[in-house]
């Protein structure tokens, strides 16, 4: 079955440290991939998207993600996190055969002062 998996439920990093949030999609046809961020009590905001082409995608708020077909992964990165980055992050994919967006279960990011 088509799926998007976020292996980490909760991650804590120190302010100023680098960040990598993991996302894996089910093996097979490559979906269109997205990362969203949700601040407490808010809706989801689109950070970046990958359709094809360059495997390193730049997004808003200093985030980037790298698509790796060999690992079926689309990990989100940021070189230096800020306290305002504390939020829930969702990876999502659209498989053309399904035409519906499939969300991962989310990773909660906490920032250590």
């Amino acid at each position, binding site marked *: 079955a088509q799926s998007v998996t976020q292996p980490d439920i909760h991650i804590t990093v120190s302010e100023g440290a680098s960040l990598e949030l993991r996302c894996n999609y089910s093996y097979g046809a490559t979906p269109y991939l997205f990362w969203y961020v949700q601040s407490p009590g*808010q809706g989801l905001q689109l950070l970046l998207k990958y359709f094809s082409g360059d495997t390193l995608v730049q997004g808003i708020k200093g985030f980037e993600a790298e698509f790796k077909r060999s690992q079926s992964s689309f990990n989100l990165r940021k070189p230096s996190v800020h306290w305002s980055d504390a939020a829930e992050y969702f990876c999502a994919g659209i498989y*053309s055969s399904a035409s519906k967006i499939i*969300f991962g279960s989310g990773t909660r990011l906490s920032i250590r002062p």
Partner: protein
Amino acid sequence: SQTIHQWPATLVQPVGSPLSLECTVEGTSNPNLYWYRQAAGRGLQLLFYSVGIGQISSEVPQNLSASRPQDRQFILSSKKLLLSDSGFYLCAWSRRVGSNQPQHFGDGTRLSIL
């Protein structure tokens, strides 16, 4: 630019009361529209989606219903709320053209059932 509005932002309702949550989109035409529920500490559950006026698909059988009376208006309703209906409800839209369109979300409605 496109915007999506949800209201109310918060709602406290007694068990057995009716519900109506509204969502409207501006700045685009013929959007796909979606209702999600997010239980505390959990991911997103797709409840309904619509590809046009009067066209509603239900993903999960439940106590809720959805309607789309106008192109850019999507309403989530219930005749009698249950305790299990508590949660954070999110409306979203996407462009209908192409299968690779991301969804864009409203700010959500926090629903508490007493």
